[in-house]
């Protein structure tokens, strides 16, 4: 019986858009020898390049690492760090760790919903503000803590938060 020729190594094609960032992502994947177990590192690199992970981008990663698309999507949605939708220009991360929770993190989230009209994981319709939650940012001593555009603020009250975010929320009273 004739034996079938060895299956040709499937070579993923470059991204048709010609976007330079895809080239950079390929370089990042090559650094990991396109190993499937480097998925998380590759997703980190992808998010750094693109800001968020579009479905098209996840499929590009799946093809290059030879992983099932569902696995890539599963990993990307498991970690809060990865965003599948574009983030707003400003971000407000409310810590909901035990200490912050006890000190009233839910009050801050309620205030955010009142002021900006969005809940955790959501972005305002004008793409100005994303509200996120984190499970303990390690700043329990200054609970309740929020992170505004990368800057940690401690002992935050609803009023202080509204004052800090003045200008981020157009319709807000703050």
């Amino acid at each position, binding site marked *: 019986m004739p034996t079938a020729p060895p299956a040709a190594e499937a070579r993923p094609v470059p991204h048709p858009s010609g976007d330079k960032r895809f080239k950079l992502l390929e370089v990042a994947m090559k650094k990991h020898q396109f190993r499937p177990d480097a998925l998380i590192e590759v997703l980190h690199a992808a998010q750094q390049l693109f800001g968020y992970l579009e479905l098209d981008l996840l499929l590009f990663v799946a093809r290059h690492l030879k992983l099932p698309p569902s696995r890539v*999507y599963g990993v990307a949605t498991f970690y809060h760090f990865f965003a599948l939708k574009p983030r707003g220009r400003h971000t407000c991360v409310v810590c909901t760790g035990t200490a912050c929770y006890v000190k009233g993190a839910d009050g801050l989230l309620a205030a955010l919903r009142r002021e900006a009209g969005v809940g955790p994981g959501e972005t305002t319709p004008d793409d100005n503000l994303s509200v996120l939650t984190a499970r303990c940012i390690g700043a329990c001593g200054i609970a309740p803590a929020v992170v505004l555009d990368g800057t940690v603020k401690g002992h935050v009250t609803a009023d202080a938060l509204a004052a800090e975010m003045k200008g981020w929320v157009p319709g807000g009273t703050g």
Partner: protein
Amino acid sequence: MTAVTLTIDGKLVTARADETILQAARANGIPIPTLCHVDGLSAHGGCRLCLVEAGPGGRLQPACVIKVAEGQDVRTDTAKLREYRKLILELLFAEGNHVCAVCVANGNCELQDAAAAAGMDHLTLDYTHPRREVDLSHDRFGVDHNRCILCTRCVRACDELEGAHTWDMSGRGANSKVITDLNQPWGESATCTSCGKCFMACPTGAIFRKGATVAEMDHGRAKLDFLITARGRKQWNV
């Protein structure tokens, strides 16, 4: 392979050292309830229904993943375990929207059977009534996430038996959900071969065959077991 001797429910049994407590118990006619376990698929250890008391101080261990050990004293049916199993089942029922009366799998459902066997006839917890979707985009099957208990049997059957790995889990915690490809409608999945192994593996009515009405659907689970022995041991038990 070395053999070990252990006690299960006071009965002295011998097992191979690489066997799990569940395998040793079942080989000796001692039943342990399971939901996420399928013989021949990799162990998941997610449903916790197979918890047994093993080792010093009656420590709780999942029987489907813990290997047997020499001199082990295992208890599979104590008052504490019965209470825990009932609670686990109550949590499963409260977490989704399991309404047997309108379910295609009524009478052919492992969740229903497990609840009946554990004597769980009502809920002491509040239902959460989550809003979940139904995907009918596939031409032969449908998936009703309301009835999904996240056992990952479809994920493992698709990956380990069919090899397509169309299914996986997305999200985490209360937002967990089984997905096909990039969370696309099942009917648009590029990897799905429409083989139906996920449907055969599903313990509830979450993955169902189209065209079946209430209490009408049989999963054809025997076919899945046939395939597992055929592929794994090259034995075709027709």
